């Protein structure tokens, strides 16, 4: 099983944190071939989505150059199979964008919650 994952967040510590959580889960579940890619801005994320195929994405809603919603829309347009999680402090604000995402993950991130949702998102 091979999975390509994209993490989009403008805060370096957050990306590092998410990577750590995923790596810890990979160890726990003895997963193989999970590749993590990262993007710090909306533009960078869209470029990467155009160039690569991702199975799943964790997208922060609040990016310096735009909204995570646009990243999700772009990814959906490319492939309807990509599973997308929205990361936000206020999930209620994105209620009407529900169709663009497979799940909403509340920030600040907690490792256990993230792991659970990672399993759900990737349907492991």
């Amino acid at each position, binding site marked *: 099983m091979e999975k390509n994952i994209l993490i989009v967040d403008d805060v370096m510590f957050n990306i590092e*944190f998410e990577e750590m959580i995923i*790596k*810890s889960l990979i160890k726990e579940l003895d997963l193989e071939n999970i590749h993590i890619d990262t993007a710090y801005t909306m533009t960078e994320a869209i470029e990467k989505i155009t160039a690569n195929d991702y199975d799943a994405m964790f997208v922060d809603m609040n990016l310096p150059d735009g909204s995570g919603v646009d990243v999700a829309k772009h990814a959906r347009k490319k492939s309807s199979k990509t599973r997308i999680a929205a990361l936000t*402090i*206020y999930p209620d604000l994105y209620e009407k964008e529900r169709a663009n995402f497979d799940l909403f993950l509340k920030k*600040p991130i*907690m*490792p*256990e919650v993230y792991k659970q949702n990672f399993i759900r998102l990737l349907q492991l």
Partner: protein
Amino acid sequence: MTIDDIDTALSHHYHLEHLFQSDKSFDKMIDATLLFIEFDELSYLHSYNIDDMLAPKITKSIKYYLSLDSYFQRVGDYQYIILLQNGVSSKELNQLIKQISNIFLEPISINDNLFYLTLSFGVSFSPKEGTTLYTLVKKAKYALKSREKFSQHSVITSEEIFTSTSYLKMTELMKDLPLAIENGEITWEYQPQYDYEKNAYTGAEMLARWKHPKYGDVSPEIFIPLAEETGMIAPLTVKLFIETSHSFKILEKNHINDFSLSINISPVFLMSKTFYTTIDFFISEYDLYHKKLHFEITEQILIKDIYLYSELFDKLKKLNIHIALDDFGTGYTSFNYLSELPISSIKIDKSLIKDIDKNLKNRTIVNAIYHMSQALNLDVIVEGVENSAENSIIKNYVSIKSQGYYHAKPMSLKELILKLIP
């Protein structure tokens, strides 16, 4: 949530409910002041229903100071309200609070037993904060509850009346807290710990700070309890962990090794289901095992469930985490417990250090704590050494460490590094 708590608590107020239903004259109030009084529960006498025995005496003493048009009522266990109608000046209100506080400086005698009571006040004003008795009680009670969290003093002085005007501020802070944690509005300062023997700083305690865009500096005494109540204490501690591991890395880069960082662990988080897995995650993934990481846990929690924590503390010890008992000397922890739990150090509370050069009683207590700790092989850190007179006493103790303004104030990581590099 606090407001719900208040609602729940209010529903237990049998007297008050009765009052709402029966007395229509309280429907609308203009120019009234409501004073909510709560006595600290005498919990050690729980089974004796002491409150009912005290109530007639309390009522009689307070009524003595009230004018005829004011309304006084016991509304629950240890709780009373006074409704002052027809406009009361703040001077008169302060005067009344002082009078009532003064009553209870003396003990109350029941069946030849003396009871020392401590009490707190909450105030709300009509029409500014509501025109119904229900709203006024709710807001005054909220003011009181907030006040309790802000300060250790149980008797409020006239200058310190805490009104429910802060009610709105609290609601706003509560809403902003997740964003503040996420966006880095909450940061940490480092207060160095001085080792007399080594003549060097060997560690630092990390202290949370919140610079709110509208309210400026918000005290941790406000936002930590708020985080605990709103489920944000775990995310806040997670951020603290990320910060801690980052700080260790920066210290290392500057060749500062063998330096300890102490972080405060909230009992609320400690008791949560995710606590251990979260800690375990950070220790292994962020490579903290070989770092000198200290958890400061307040002594108060040990009074309740000491044996509940022994297993958890053992597990933390296996992760190479040092446990320090914080605020030591303010509670009732027995030294027996200390010998049974895997605790590495105690931090003697600053209230015992203040004026230790003059206060013989405190000096005796600190002396006893110190010698007991030595016997139990525990490190001792004293908090709140603020001047050379206090320092001259403390420095005589062998292998003691000191954290206080006399040696160093809390500072940024950058300033800490500058202080540590010779």
